[in-house]
């Protein structure tokens, strides 16, 4: 695959959430406000890029039979690293995300890209793929969280931006709101790419 395509692929064309439809659980769970969403996005981006690089680096010496346990060990090492870093440098986001940081280990995007891409491509291309997929995930997480926070609470990053007459739609703060928002963005993307 051409170099630039590796990178841009994950942002829109094969966006993990809207197209591949993987990694949806954390999207639903942490997209209720923008601050948490950004924290999660950065953590996932870090783990995705780091694991892709390492897994690609050792791809020639990993025997097929034990590749999954090895991928998981590598991914969990980076997730735990991200967890410690967040606990040290952004403790309130870390507390807010709670159990969803360790759950990044089982985020399908990371294992999915390891299996589908990193173990079959060069380190540089895997790095680009990780960046692209991570940024695509971050983008959609940010958009969904913005919609949910503004419509569900009238705030953005905790600051009230809509007038006090605005009555927030509680459904946006709950899971159904997340599903509905994802569906809308999916529809928008399809229309943009004229698939509908």
């Amino acid at each position, binding site marked *: 695959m051409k170099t630039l395509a590796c990178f841009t692929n994950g942002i829109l064309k094969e966006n993990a959430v809207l197209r591949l439809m993987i990694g949806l659980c954390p999207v639903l769970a942490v997209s209720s406000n923008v601050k948490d969403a950004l924290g999660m996005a950065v953590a996932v981006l870090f783990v995705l890029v780091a694991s892709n690089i390492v897994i690609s680096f*050792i791809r020639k*010496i990993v*025997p097929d039979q034990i590749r999954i346990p090895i991928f998981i*060990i*590598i991914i969990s090492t980076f997730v735990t*690293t991200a967890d410690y870093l967040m606990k040290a440098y952004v403790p309130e986001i870390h507390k807010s995300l709670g159990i969803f940081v360790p759950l990044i280990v089982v985020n399908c995007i990371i294992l999915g890209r390891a299996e589908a891409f990193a173990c079959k491509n060069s380190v540089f291309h895997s790095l680009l793929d990780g960046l692209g997929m991570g940024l695509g995930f971050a983008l959609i997480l940010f958009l969904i969280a913005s919609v949910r926070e503004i419509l569900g609470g009238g705030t953005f990053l905790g600051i009230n931006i809509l007038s006090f007459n605005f009555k927030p739609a509680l459904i946006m703060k709950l899971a159904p709101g997340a599903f509905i928002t994802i569906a809308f963005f999916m529809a928008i993307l399809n229309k943009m790419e004229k698939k509908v």
Partner: protein
Amino acid sequence: MKFIFKLAFILMTICIWAAGTLAWVESTTRNKIKNNEIQKQEILKQIVLKEANSFKEIEKEIFLGYNKIEQIVGMVVGIDVKGYGGSIKMLVGVGKDRKIKGFEILSHKETPGLGSEIEKGSFKNQFKGKEVSKIILKKDNPNGEIDAISGATISSRAVTNGLKKALNNADRVFKSIGEN
């Protein structure tokens, strides 16, 4: 046969790498995390004893609270109890009247959704303004005034016992400095 050894060796190498990386990360972030906890504690001391302006550590984990004119308004006691899933760390504000002014859970390892409800206001607020004789679960003693959380008796009891311990400690220290 030799193949198994190759697999085992590769797995072992990766695990050693993982262990080493994690050990390095932990040691690098250890101090920052500890400082964060200390800072958080300072803020929480203020929250559990609102009347106090400044604190002085008089004993390990026991802080006297002073108001603006250097009068003692109460005490903040740090307490550690064994809960269901691990140790529960709390910070308890005690007034001179030996009643609970407020408390916060610093950390716990209780079950999410069950024991973790000890952090909820609906459970915590039961303790406000109570003295040691009332701080016992209703199911453990008819004189008690504390409702346990459904499905989380052990966690509820642990917090209750912790608060009793805090009040007893506070009473002891108050007496030792002449505040009877």
